[in-house]
């Protein structure tokens, strides 16, 4: 049988159902948040570790022009190197029927016997190619899915200028391509980029690479000094056209995956904790009031012989009911949301994800954390219930102590209306409550900004990068540099309105001890289709001698305009040249440097050439043009700006919409809970005062202003603080999110985002306030005056 005290508990909860529900909702959101983030973190993090381990992901990566196989042993002798695996990696075009421009393949050689000792291939269906079967390939599964390829399908590929018909024998993934971006790309594109694996002897034969390799991956011994290994490898590969070794941190797939994991990790600490803090605060407000209201009851329960522990337990049980209800909803919601989030991730990160239905310890942790927060929240209230002497509680509580607030004493405000004064005094009486309430509102507003600012940053960045900087429609990258006059040939192709070309060469930039591998681009003096801008969006001119570098590269090198930096060439005589930094430019992607094309040729001591052509085309004749372009044997890849842009926007928009929606809902839950609970408690505290005022002739509007004035002030204080908080948070997330050497989101929050967040918070606040205000209409003037506190 339910004890009488428990019956009281249930009825008290029923009476406070609005408050119980709103607080439970905040708990639910916190728990759901925690479960979602933790599940995502675990799924990505654990899967990554297991995947890397099982498929032997390398620690160090290096590309080289052509090194004889004998170099492998020298690399293996480097101190700290555990094992070395030389490979051949080649870019190929895949002219698939129905695609406007050919897709890009990246062929990776397989060893002649057994599985790759590193960066192994996870074959999801089908089998490995037979050694020596030059027409058999494993192909990246997401690409295969996009193109309906299955084991047994064929795919056209241009290998070293010759069209082959390759047979797909299996669909595969690899730890190297968890997030697959083609070289020079800005995002993953399953439709257009395909890593492929082929028998090593066949790759070597097709690309005349017998007895040599052009890519090497290395596993380190535990505790090895990575930096020293990188330097040693560079030294060994240098004579063979090494392009600079790098570790996992600069391996693009890994760095994007780890960036995402780091971001979740930051959020998992901060977000759910903040929700629970809000819930704890609100429980504090509500329970403090309840204990005050129930002084008489508590006293009588004690007087008839109940123990203090029973009283404490009574309130703890009450809070447990709220928290357990909230967490149950939160666990269910969190399980669903985690699943949805992992589905979203599964669209970006291709790795075998271990995703249990729901991680029980995580759910239990969330519930325990919520219980602890709640108990901490009501600790003071319970303490005052326990220490309440049964005799003293028989008297009504003495009138609350008010003081004149300093605000009233400010000159000019002396003649505040009495009703306004009541509001200020109430705030002044409980300054902490105002502080915490405003903090709750600020937090709610901040997370709306966090959910939405990504959109703001993407618009202008795409506009800048693809509207103002890259003005071409199509860029054509050649395998090797071609003479400038080839551009003239391109200009005569159908549909081509304008042609530009530039020379790009891989280099290592160095200043003192700092260095970074990147590319140096030589632009013609009258470059129409590629423009550079400074951070202030002013067009940047390239000086006749000297180099412009992206500001991120300048940061990495610690270089400032006027400094001389070393440019270590990786082509031609591979010499080191000194160049003066004449300025910095702002670009969203990469860390390249720019020079006048003629100066670059000077550095390289070569004749005028280009290796990238930029085309402006007549959209009506684009299809016709592509037929010609794909047939040019010197073309390595063709990029259509519109396709890239649409892919990028499509991916970010979808993610962004989901996140915005969820975080806005979460924020609304907080705002409603804060305003509603404060207003309800304030109504409970002051219904007598307000009824008295009504009796004295005040209108409903006037007493509403007194009741809700306090909440209005809390909201008004919270809003600007929330804007600042959201701005900080956005900054912090940006720093975590993307690898700045790859891609930089500018710190940009639009006025629409600020406005949106303010409107959502205001709407939630006003709605909740109105819910409470409705109760003023039914204020029982006579009854309230009769009831004793």
């Amino acid at each position, binding site marked *: 049988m339910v004890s009488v*005290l428990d019956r009281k508990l249930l009825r008290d909860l029923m009476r406070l159902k609005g408050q119980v529900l709103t607080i439970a909702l905040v708990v639910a959101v916190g728990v759901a948040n925690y479960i979602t983030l933790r599940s995502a973190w675990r799924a990505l993090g654990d899967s990554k570790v297991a995947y890397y381990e099982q498929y032997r992901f390398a620690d160090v990566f290096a590309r080289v022009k052509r090194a004889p196989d004998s170099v492998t042993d020298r690399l293996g002798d480097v101190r700290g190197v555990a094992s070395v695996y030389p490979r051949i990696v080649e870019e190929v075009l895949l002219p698939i029927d129905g695609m406007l421009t050919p897709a890009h393949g990246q062929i990776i050689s397989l060893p002649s016997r057994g599985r790759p000792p590193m960066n192994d291939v996870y074959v999801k269906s089908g089998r490995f190619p037979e050694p020596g079967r030059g027409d058999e390939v494993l192909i990246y599964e997401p690409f295969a899915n996009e193109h309906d390829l299955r084991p047994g399908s064929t795919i056209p590929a241009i290998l070293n200028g010759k069209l082959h018909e390759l047979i797909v024998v299996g669909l595969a993934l690899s730890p190297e391509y968890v997030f697959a971006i083609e070289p020079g790309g800005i995002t993953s594109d399953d439709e257009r980029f395909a890593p492929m694996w082929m028998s090593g002897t066949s790759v070597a034969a097709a690309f005349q690479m017998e007895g040599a390799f052009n890519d090497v991956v290395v596993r380190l011994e535990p505790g090895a000094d990575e930096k020293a290994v990188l330097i040693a490898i560079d030294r060994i590969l240098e004579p063979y056209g090494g392009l600079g070794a790098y570790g996992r941190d600069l391996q693009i797939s890994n760095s994007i995956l780890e960036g995402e994991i780091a971001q979740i990790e930051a959020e998992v600490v901060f977000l759910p904790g903040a929700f629970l803090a809000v819930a704890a605060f609100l429980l504090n407000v509500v329970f403090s009031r309840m204990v005050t209201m129930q002084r008489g009851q508590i006293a009588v329960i004690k007087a008839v012989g109940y123990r203090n522990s029973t009283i404490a337990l009574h309130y703890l049980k009450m809070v447990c009911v709220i928290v357990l209800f909230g967490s149950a909803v939160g666990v269910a919601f969190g399980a669903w949301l985690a699943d949805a989030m992992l589905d979203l991730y599964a669209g970006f990160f291709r790795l075998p994800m271990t995703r249990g239905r729901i991680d029980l310890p995580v759910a239990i942790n969330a519930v325990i954390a919520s219980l602890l927060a709640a108990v901490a929240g009501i600790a003071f209230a319970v303490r005052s219930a326990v220490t309440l002497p049964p005799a003293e509680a028989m008297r009504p509580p003495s009138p609350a102590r008010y003081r004149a607030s300093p605000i009233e004493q400010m000159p000019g405000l002396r003649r505040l209306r009495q009703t306004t004064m009541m509001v200020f005094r109430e705030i002044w009486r409980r300054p902490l409550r105002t502080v915490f309430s405003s903090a709750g509102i600020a937090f709610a507003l901040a997370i709306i900004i966090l959910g939405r600012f990504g959109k703001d940053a993407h618009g202008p960045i795409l506009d800048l990068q693809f509207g103002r900087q890259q003005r071409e429609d199509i860029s054509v990258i050649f395998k090797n540099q071609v003479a400038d006059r080839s551009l003239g040939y391109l200009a005569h192709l159908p549909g081509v309105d304008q042609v530009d070309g530039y020379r790009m060469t891989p280099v290592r930039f160095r200043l003192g001890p700092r260095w970074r591998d990147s590319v140096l681009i030589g632009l013609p003096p009258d470059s129409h289709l590629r423009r550079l801008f400074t951070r202030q969006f002013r067009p940047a001119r390239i000086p006749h001698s000297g180099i412009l570098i992206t500001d991120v590269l300048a940061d990495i090198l610690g270089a400032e305009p006027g400094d001389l930096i070393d440019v270590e060439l990786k082509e031609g005589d591979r010499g080191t040249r000194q160049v003066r930094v004449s300025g910095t430019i702002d670009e969203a992607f990469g860390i390249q440097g720019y020079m006048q094309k003629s100066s670059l040729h000077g550095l390289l001591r070569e004749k005028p050439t280009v290796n990238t052509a930029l085309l402006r085309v007549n959209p009506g004749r684009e299809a016709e043009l592509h037929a010609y372009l794909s047939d040019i044997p010197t073309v390595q890849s063709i990029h259509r700006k519109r396709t890239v842009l649409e892919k990028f926007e499509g991916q970010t928009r979808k993610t962004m919409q989901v996140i915005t929606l969820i975080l806005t809902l979460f924020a609304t839950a907080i705002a409603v809970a804060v305003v509603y609970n404060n207003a309800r408690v304030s109504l409970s505290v002051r219904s007598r005062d307000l009824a008295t005022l009504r009796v004295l002739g005040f209108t409903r509007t006037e007493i509403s202003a007194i009741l809700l004035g306090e909440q209005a002030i809390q909201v008004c204080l919270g809003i600007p603080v929330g804007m600042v908080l959201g701005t900080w948070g956005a900054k912090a997330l940006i720093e975590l999110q993307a690898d700045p050497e790859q891609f930089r989101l500018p710190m940009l929050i639009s006025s629409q985002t600020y406005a949106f967040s303010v409107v959502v918070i205001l709407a939630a606040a006003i709605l909740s306030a109105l819910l409470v205000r409705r109760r003023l209409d039914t204020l029982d003037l006579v009854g309230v005056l009769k009831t004793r506190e």
Partner: protein
Amino acid sequence: MPEPSPSSERSSILSAEDVSKVYQMGDVEVHALRGVDVPLHEGELMVLLGPSGSGKSTLLNILGALDVPTSGRVLYRGDDIAGHGERELTNFRRDHVGFVFQFYNLVPSLTARENIALVTEISKTPLDPREALELVGLTERMDHFPAQLSGGEQQRVAIARAVAKQPEILLCDEPTGALDFKTGIRVLEVIDEVNRSLGTTTAVITHHAPIASMADRVVSLADGMVASDRRNDEKVSPSELTW
């Protein structure tokens, strides 16, 4: 021996001996009780009279172990409970004392019957809540919440709650203080009935002198001291009271 003091006539079940109570209000010391000796005799109905602020409630609270004296002793069947800890005091209240307060102090979220069950659930020899309500003539309001009852009815429920555990001692602090005359009489009748039919030792506080006529014994307090302690030989039933 000179004239025997009234207190030694019958065996006292509960008594305050030289009890003082000092409240510390900031820098001010309030002497609510100054060396009070008040015994409660087995089965009697005692009325504690005195003006407002004379220390009546303080005394009753100390007798009922709701509060502890600053000095002096509180003897329950010869055992000093004044020095006992919180837990023993709670047990003492639970097992031996029933309280009725001026403002009824019913739990508003519990029905009449449940308010009584609140006590019977933790007592050793309880009445059935329904029996207790019968005693105060309120069986038909059993499932009403306090807000649905008049003041007098609420106070009768409070009395039923106090007697439902069949306490040895019933302590009532201004039970009629918030009630009109007729209702007050009805409540006093119930208290009188309990005292007589169950033999419960009863103390009733009032600042209203005429009520003293229903008592076996009348103790007057003034300014924290016992002003008089006398037997009432012309005990009348509450229905004959006038004021």
